[in-house]
């Protein structure tokens, strides 16, 4: 059973690679491992992760809780150094920041207005005030936040705050967008609306994007490829190509036979790892 799964996994990986390759490589990870040493001992978060992210693709990463998804993203962002292995940023666009991150938790600055938050990256890069206001206003408009430009975060709902966080990352115009379960804490209705908006904005820019989620549904709706991670220590279990047409409508796409097929395949890989993660939890 496990051999079969691995075979399908490798097959899927090969197929995914072949299809997206023409776009060129954005990031290449080779043999990435990450070990955390704490008071209660050593935890291996990631083990020998090999992964190529292609320019212009939307890569979704799913995996059981605690599998090191966030750690992997933080390594991609440069917020964390791998214990071993190599991170090669191949994409170099002069004048652009390499990456901008949309964090999982509430991360917009409470002391700045919505507009100042959206313009934060630009301000840090020394973009002149007039220009950054112009850019910020553009992104406020496409995220539907124009009315709240001068509001402070405490006046916004959770969904609005995540919208600001997404706008902040897009406004910074990075080569690579990194998103760590940005809609994980939102209610179902808000989440669907924001997913659809993200799709619309992303399909307009086609920026390289890495998106972490624990929802297969979300991964399939948004991604060009879906990477399934193993339970801790996190490794690449399988990569699947999501051959669903774009632009996508998230409500319609769910009823497509291909969507259901892919859903089943991913769940097949994921279930095993979720069981392992649960067993580990009970042990420890």
């Amino acid at each position: 059973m496990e051999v079969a799964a691995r075979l399908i996994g490798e097959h899927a990986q090969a197929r995914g690679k072949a299809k997206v390759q023409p776009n060129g490589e954005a990031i290449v990870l080779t043999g990435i491992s990450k070990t955390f040493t704490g008071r209660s001992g050593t935890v291996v978060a990631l083990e020998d992760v090999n992964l190529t992210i292609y320019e212009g693709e939307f890569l979704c990463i799913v995996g059981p809780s605690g599998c090191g998804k966030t750690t992997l993203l933080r390594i991609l962002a440069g917020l964390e150094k791998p214990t071993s292995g190599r991170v090669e940023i191949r994409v170099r666009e002069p004048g652009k920041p390499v990456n901008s991150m949309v964090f999982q938790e509430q991360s917009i600055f409470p002391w700045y207005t919505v507009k100042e938050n959206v313009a934060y990256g630009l301000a840090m890069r020394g973009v002149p005030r007039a220009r950054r206001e112009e850019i910020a206003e553009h992104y406020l408009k496409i995220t539907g936040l124009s009315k709240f430009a001068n509001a402070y975060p405490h006046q916004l709902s959770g969904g609005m705050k995540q919208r600001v966080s997404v706008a902040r990352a897009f406004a910074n115009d990075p080569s690579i967008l990194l998103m760590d379960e940005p809609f994980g804490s939102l209610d179902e209705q808000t989440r669907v609306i924001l997913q659809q908006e993200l799709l619309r904005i992303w399909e307009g820019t086609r920026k390289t994007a890495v998106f972490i989620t624990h929802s297969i549904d979300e991964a399939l709706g948004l991604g060009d490829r879906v990477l399934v991670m193993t339970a801790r220590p996190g490794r690449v279990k399988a990569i699947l190509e999501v051959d669903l047409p774009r632009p996508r409508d998230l409500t319609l796409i769910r009823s497509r036979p291909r969507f259901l097929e892919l859903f089943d395949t991913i769940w097949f890989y994921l279930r095993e790892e979720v069981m392992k993660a649960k067993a580990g939890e009970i042990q420890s």
Partner: protein
Amino acid sequence: MRAEAKIISFFSPLLLLVLWEVLARAGLVDIRIFSCPSRIIETFLPVLFSGELLYHTWVSVRRIILGFLAGAIPGVLLGLSMGLFPLVRAALEPMVAITFPIPKLAVMPMIILVFGLGEASKVFTVAIGVFYLVLVNTVAGVLSIDRIYLDVAKNFGASRWNFYRTVALPGALPMIFAGLKLGMGTALILIVAAELTAAQAGLGDWIWRAYDMFDIERMFTSLIMLTVLGYLFANALDLLERWVIPWKSPHA
């Protein structure tokens, strides 16, 4: 209900004053020690309009403001560095922890020995009290900043200077203001105490001289001014806070 509460809050102090007056006139309160509102007003208005009381108030206010600034500014700067740099914190924390609980009044004789009987010793006494409260609160303020904001600043390429300007200072401001407000209360206590012992002017000195002459009403006029000062300073800090921290949620 709210209107009722407001009416009660407005009349309860007035009622107390009336009660005081009535009891004094009935001979149930010893006016030689406690005086009574009518006599106090009789003394208060002339010294107020002659400018005599205002002069002494100004002397105290000047000492409070100078001492407050001399304590708060180093308190914020040192507090930010202690909050930001673990090594600075490790080096200074023991000294702060040991000297913070010492009542500042206990070192007043020492301060007078060093700074003499002039203005400097009064200003320094206020400064040292304000300094500790602002320092301790600023450190706590920086340490309470959610780590996520540091990650955001790093991810968006903030320089070292921008890191302090856009994260550390604004993040610590609510706590800094808590320290400033505590410091203001302490400043009033300390200035009166400093002026009671060794001063040529000021509201504390005024109380001491009135006591020497057993002029109870005159003592009360100084208390009235101190009440007004406390109220004005607290409101000034509230205003400043609202202006400097416009993002503060009214519920937080």
